[in-house]
C-alpha cells in the first residue's frame, strides 16, 4: 500500500513537471482551415485564389509583396531605382537568398521568372501584369534591370502579385506538386482532399517566423466549417463561409472574429452582348430594381459594404456612386417601359456555390420579379460556371465576386465574359496604365469608375467582407485581404 502511494506521488510529480514544461513552451504549430483546396501549387499558371492562399509569401516570394494593410513593400528586391522617364527599373536583390532546394536565387532566376510569365505561350493567368515589359536584363548576379515600353505607375504593385513570384528554373517541371520557392516555409506533405502541411524553412534568408509548422485544412461545407471551428479541430478559419454563425463565435470567449475588407466586388454580372441587356435602359432599370441593403442583410447577415461601381471602397480613389443606382422600383418599371418591355422579360440567372451568390440570387430574382423581370435560377458548380458562363459566355445574368485587386481594367477587355465594349473606356485605361503621377492617376481612376457606373455595365452590389474566425490566442492574422494570402510569418500564439 505504501509503495503504491509513493509511486502515485512520484508519477504525479512527473506529470505536473511535464505540464509546467508544456506551458513554458509556446505553441508553435497551427491549423488553418479554408473552403477551397488549391487545384495545384503553382501560382504562376492558374487564377485559383486557393493557390495563393497557401503559397503566397509562405513558399513563394516576388520582388515586392503585399502587406496586410495593402501596402507594397520590398521582398526579394532589397531596393530599386527608377529611371527619370519611368521606364527602367533597376532592382537590387537580397544577398544570400536560396531556394528550398539549396540553389542560390540570383538575377538569372528573376529574368527567367519574368520572361516565363510574359512569354507568348505562358500559362500565366494575369499576363496583363507583364504586358508592359520590353526586356529583362541581368546586370550582375544581384542586380536586374527591367525596361518597360512606357512608364507604368502600377509596376511595383504588379510585381507583388502571386502571379509574379520568382521561381527556380530547375523546378518548373514539377512545380505544381513540388513547389520550390525562396519563402520561409517549405512544402511538407499534401494529402489531396484533406490538407497541406508546411514546415519552417531553416535556411530562410529573412527573420525566422514564430510558427514551426502550419497545416491548411480544406472544409468546403459551411455546416462542417461551423462544427470544426466549434469543436476546436482547427485554430483558424479564413474566409468563413457562413456569416450567420459569426454572432455565436463573437459571443464565445474561446474565439475571436475578424471582419475586414477584401478586394471582392460582388456584382450581378450582365451579358452586355445578349439582348435585351445590350440596351442601357434595361440595365439601368435592373440597377434601380435592386435593393442592395436587403441583399447584404439577407445573404450576408449584414457583412458587406454597398458599392455603386467596380472599385474597392477602402481604396483612397474610390467614389461613392451608389446614388446612380438607388433602389427605386417605380423608376425601374418606367425605364423598362421606355426600353420597350412594359411587361418585363425572361432571362437566366446562373448561381455558383458561395452563399453570397446562392442566397443573393434568390433575393435578386425576387426583386427583379417585382418589376416584371423573370429571372430563372440555375444553380451551378464552379467547373460548370467557368465552362458555361466565364468561357462560354452563354448566360443572361450571374452573381460573382471579382476578388483580384484593382481589376477595373477587365472592363477594357471586350472579349471578357460580360462583354462590355466601350472604346472610350479602353482608351482611358491605356492612358491610366501609362500615367505615373499619383494625382492624375486618381483622377483617371475616378473617371473610369463613373463611366462604368453610368453605363450600368453590371449590377454593383457590395464589397465582400473578409470574415475569419480564430481561437482567442492567435495573433497577427490579416483582418483585411488585399490579395489572397495567409501570411504565416505574421502569425503567432499569445503567451
Amino acid at each position, binding site marked *: 500500500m505504501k509503495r503504491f502511494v509513493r509511486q502515485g506521488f512520484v508519477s504525479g510529480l512527473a506529470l505536473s513537471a511535464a505540464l509546467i514544461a508544456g506551458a513554458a513552451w509556446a505553441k508553435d504549430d497551427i491549423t488553418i482551415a479554408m473552403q477551397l483546396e488549391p487545384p495545384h501549387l503553382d501560382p504562376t499558371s492558374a487564377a485559383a485564389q486557393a493557390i495563393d492562399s497557401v503559397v503566397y509569401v509562405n513558399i513563394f516570394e516576388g520582388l515586392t509583396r503585399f502587406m496586410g494593410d495593402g501596402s507594397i513593400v520590398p521582398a526579394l528586391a532589397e531596393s530599386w531605382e527608377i529611371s527619370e522617364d519611368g521606364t527602367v527599373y533597376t532592382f537590387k536583390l537580397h544577398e544570400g537568398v536560396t531556394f528550398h532546394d539549396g540553389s542560390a536565387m540570383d538575377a538569372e532566376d528573376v529574368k527567367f521568372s519574368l520572361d516565363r510569365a510574359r512569354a507568348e505561350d505562358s500559362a500565366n493567368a494575369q499576363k496583363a501584369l507583364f504586358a508592359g515589359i520590353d526586356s529583362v536584363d541581368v546586370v550582375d548576379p544581384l542586380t536586374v534591370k527591367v525596361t518597360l515600353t512606357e512608364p507604368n505607375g502600377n509596376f511595383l504593385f504588379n510585381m507583388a502579385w502571386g502571379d509574379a513570384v520568382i521561381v527556380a528554373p530547375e523546378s518548373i517541371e514539377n512545380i505544381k506538386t513540388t513547389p520550390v520557392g525562396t519563402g520561409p516555409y517549405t512544402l511538407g506533405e499534401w494529402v489531396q482532399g484533406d490538407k497541406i502541411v508546411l514546415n519552417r524553412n531553416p535556411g530562410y534568408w529573412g527573420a525566422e517566423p514564430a510558427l514551426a509548422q502550419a497545416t491548411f485544412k480544406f472544409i468546403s461545407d*459551411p*455546416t462542417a466549417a*461551423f462544427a470544426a471551428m466549434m469543436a476546436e479541430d482547427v485554430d483558424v478559419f479564413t474566409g468563413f463561409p*457562413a456569416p*450567420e*454563425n459569426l*454572432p*455565436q463565435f463573437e459571443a464565445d470567449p474561446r474565439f475571436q472574429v475578424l471582419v475586414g475588407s477584401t478586394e471582392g466586388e460582388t456584382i450581378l454580372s450582365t451579358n452586355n452582348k445578349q439582348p435585351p441587356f445590350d440596351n442601357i435602359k434595361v440595365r439601368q432599370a435592373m440597377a434601380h430594381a435592386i435593393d442592395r441593403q*436587403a441583399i447584404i*442583410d*439577407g445573404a450576408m447577415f449584414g457583412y458587406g459594404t454597398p458599392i455603386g461601381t467596380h472599385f474597392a471602397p477602402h481604396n483612397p480613389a474610390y467614389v461613392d456612386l451608389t446614388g446612380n443606382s438607388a433602389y427605386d422600383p417605380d423608376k425601374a418599371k418606367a425605364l423598362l417601359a421606355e426600353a420597350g418591355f412594359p411587361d418585363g422579360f425572361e432571362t437566366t440567372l446562373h448561381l455558383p456555390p458561395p452563399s453570397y451568390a446562392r*442566397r443573393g*440570387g*434568390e*433575393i435578386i*430574382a*425576387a*426583386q427583379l*420579379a417585382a418589376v416584371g423581370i423573370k429571372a*430563372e*435560377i*440555375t*444553380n451551378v458548380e464552379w467547373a460548370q460556371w467557368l465552362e458555361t458562363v466565364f468561357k462560354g459566355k452563354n448566360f443572361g445574368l450571374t452573381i460573382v465576386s471579382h476578388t483580384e485587386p484593382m481589376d477595373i481594367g477587365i472592363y477594357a477587355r471586350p472579349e471578357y465574359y460580360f462583354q462590355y465594349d466601350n472604346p472610350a473606356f479602353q482608351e482611358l485605361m491605356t492612358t491610366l496604365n501609362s500615367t505615373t503621377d499619383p494625382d492624375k492617376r486618381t483622377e483617371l481612376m475616378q473617371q473610369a469608375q463613373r463611366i462604368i457606373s453610368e453605363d450600368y455595365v453590371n449590377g454593383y452590389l457590395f464589397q465582400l467582407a473578409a470574415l475569419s474566425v480564430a481561437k482567442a490566442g492567435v495573433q497577427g492574422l490579416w483582418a483585411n485581404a488585399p490579395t489572397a494570402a495567409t501570411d504565416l510569418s505574421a502569425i503567432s500564439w499569445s503567451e
Partner: protein
Amino acid sequence: MSRNLILGAGLSSLVVLSALVSFVWTPYDYAALNIPAKLQTPNARHWLGTDHFGRDMFSMIMVGARTSIAVALLAVGIGMSLGVPLGLAAAARKGSWLDELIMRGNDLVFAFPSLVIAILITAVFGAGAVNAIIAIGIFNIPVFARITRGAALSLWEREFIMAARVAGKSAAHISAEHILPNVANLLIVQGTIQFSLGILAEAGLSYVGLGAQPPTPSWGRMLADAQTMVSFAPHLALIPGFAIILTVLGLNLMGDGLRDWLDPRIRVARS
C-alpha cells in the same frame, strides 16, 4: 377499417388538402421576401415563423407540399403507366424473348441505387422539377413491372382465364379485361408506398439542389437552407423535417392499411 388506415388516410389527406388550398390561399405570398422580419420563431402573425429571408414558413410548407405531391404523383404515374403494361406483357408471354428482355431490363435499372442515378440524371440534364420527375419516374417502372408480372403470372393459371382463352380472346384482351382488374388492388397499395418514396426522393434531390429550383419552395431545399442555422433557429429545420416525416408516415400507414383492407383473405378472416 383499421386504425392504421384511418390515421394514415387522415395524415395524407391533411397534406393533400393543404397542397390544394395553397392554390387559392396561403397566409402570405410564399415568395415575398421581407428581410427585416427574418428568422422569427412561430408567433401569432407567422404561425410557423419566418425563414432567413423573412418568408412565411407556413405558406412555404403549404406550397412545398404541392411541389412534393406533384413530383411524386407524376413520378409514380410514369412508373405505373409504363411499368404495368410491361409487366402484363411479360406475364402474357411468359418465358418468351419478350419476357426475358423486359425482366432483364428491369434488373438492369433495379441494380442501380435509385437516388444516386437520379442525381446523375438531374446533374446531366440540368436541375429542376421536371427532370426530378423523370428521374424518379424511371426508377418506378421496374417496381410496377415486377409486381404486375408476379401477380399476373398466378392469375394466368386460373380457370376463368383458361375459359377466356378457350373462348378465343387474345392475350392483350385478357390482360386488359381480366388480369388488370384483379391486380388493381395490389397496384394501389404499391402506388401508395411508391408515392411516399417519391416524396422522400424529391426531398433528397432538392436537398442537394437538384430538385425544384428557387423560388418554388420545396421541403428538401428548406432543410438544406436551414443547415447552418440549426444552432440558433432550429425551427427552420424542424418544420420541413416534420412535414416530410408526417407525410411519409401517413402514406406508409395508409399503404399498410389499404393492403389489409383490400386483401380478400384478411377480410374474410376478419368477418
